[in-house]
């Protein structure tokens, strides 16, 4: 995969930009332009998180595929998408968008001898990432329900107030 990796590294900024644009285009048209302005980390947390984390993911894909780092980055993005207006498949689909983004840049290169094998290897790395994205999505949703259960339990404790409100005899 060395040769392809070189190309991927050389085209990094273009591919990342395309990947980012594809992801952001899953938001309503009228908002996506705003999300693309990632200059402001605190004014545009969604856009800047996506932009920051996909770069880290990209580096891992070209590097050692450190599962801990991958999970942290995936989690940062998926956490956002799993509370937004997306279905499960829509929430994780952004991983696959890297294929389109990279292919657009490298289509010519793939005609070279032996590159196709490299590409297939790279694709399977992306697939691995996608599977981890599913885990992360499930994890996020579970976390949401955990939190909700905790809140309901707290509410239930407040309902116990009925007991507190029960009239009782004067204290001795």
């Amino acid at each position, binding site marked *: 995969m060395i040769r392809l990796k070189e190309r991927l590294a050389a085209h990094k900024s273009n591919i990342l930009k395309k990947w980012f644009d594809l992801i952001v285009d899953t938001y309503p048209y*009228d*908002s996506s332009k705003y999300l693309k*302005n990632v200059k402001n980390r605190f004014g545009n947390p969604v856009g*800047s998180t996506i932009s920051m984390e996909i770069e880290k993911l990209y580096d891992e894909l070209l590097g050692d595929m450190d599962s801990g780092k991958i999970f942290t980055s995936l989690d940062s993005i998926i956490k956002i998408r799993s509370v937004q207006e997306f279905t499960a498949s829509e929430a994780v689909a952004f991983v696959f968008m890297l294929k389109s983004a990279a292919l657009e840049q490298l289509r010519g290169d793939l005609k070279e001898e032996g590159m196709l094998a490299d590409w297939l290897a790279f694709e399977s790395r992306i697939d691995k990432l996608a599977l981890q994205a599913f885990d992360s999505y499930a994890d996020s949703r579970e976390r949401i329900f955990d939190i909700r259960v905790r809140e309901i339990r707290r509410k239930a404790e407040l309902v116990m107030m009925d007991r507190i409100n029960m009239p009782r005899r*004067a204290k001795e």
Partner: protein
Amino acid sequence: MSIFYSLLAITVLILIPIVGVGGLGWRYLFGVIIPYAAFGLFIIGIIYRILLWAKVPVPFKITTTCGQQKSLPWIKNSKLEAPPNSFWTAMRMSSEVLFFRSLFRNSKAQLKPGPKLVYGSGILLWLGAICFHYSFLVILIRHFRFFIGPTSKFIEIVSGLDSFFQIGLPILYITDLVILIALTYLLLRRFLSPQLKYISLAADYFPLFLLLCIALSGTTMRYFTRIDIVAVKELGMGLAGFHPVIPDNLSLMFFIHIFLVSSLIAYFPFSKLMHMGGIFLSPTRNMANDNRKRRHINPWNPKVEVHTYEEYEDEFREVMKNAGLPLEKEE
């Protein structure tokens, strides 16, 4: 759609004087009657709108505080952002009206992952707005020379500053250039930003088109087709002195210009352009943050049903007694 209808409206507005003056020769109608009517509508409309607003009461003092309140003497009060009294409220209003302070807040330096400082696109909006409004003001002042006899010193100074660079012949007024750029920017951002396009209505495009056409027709006359200034002044002074005359050598372009201006001032009081008056009456900006110091009166303060202590004690007397809480009435 909104853009299309606004453009359509503008085209019609331009065609009217072309047909009316160029075709039918109704110069008196377009030079005198319509401007008078529009001006009348403008004055009456503005007074009507302001009265309509002013007549609505302000039940609560809902200042938006954008800085530290005045509380303890050793804590520095941000007087402009949380005005402690009417004087500072007036200063706050002035900073809004003269410098568009709140709009400027958008353009704060931002921290870029880097860390690098960048300025948001917000500053462009502020700059565009400032440039437009001030150019408009200067151009308005300059135009007064058409309506008064001997030109006043003040207008001369303003015009002199405006043509400071002494480029071209006739000498270029900086504001003519600036207003065209500013208007183009204000229009383009509505076209190009999807967010803004999404929120923009015909009522947002139309005034921009109208202003742009007015500025274009005006600059054309000054720099290219060369209007007869003496004739314009004759008309202007006639209108101002209520003995209107229509000089012969006024071009069609002039009638288009004056008709568009008439349309603008007639439309003004009934449109969002009244934001100019509204800002003075905006309750979050025109009141001091002295709520707990000076009581604000609500003229229609309603009587509402409340749950009185007596009712409360009546309901809970038994349990209160058992809990050893003091009571007003034992039974």
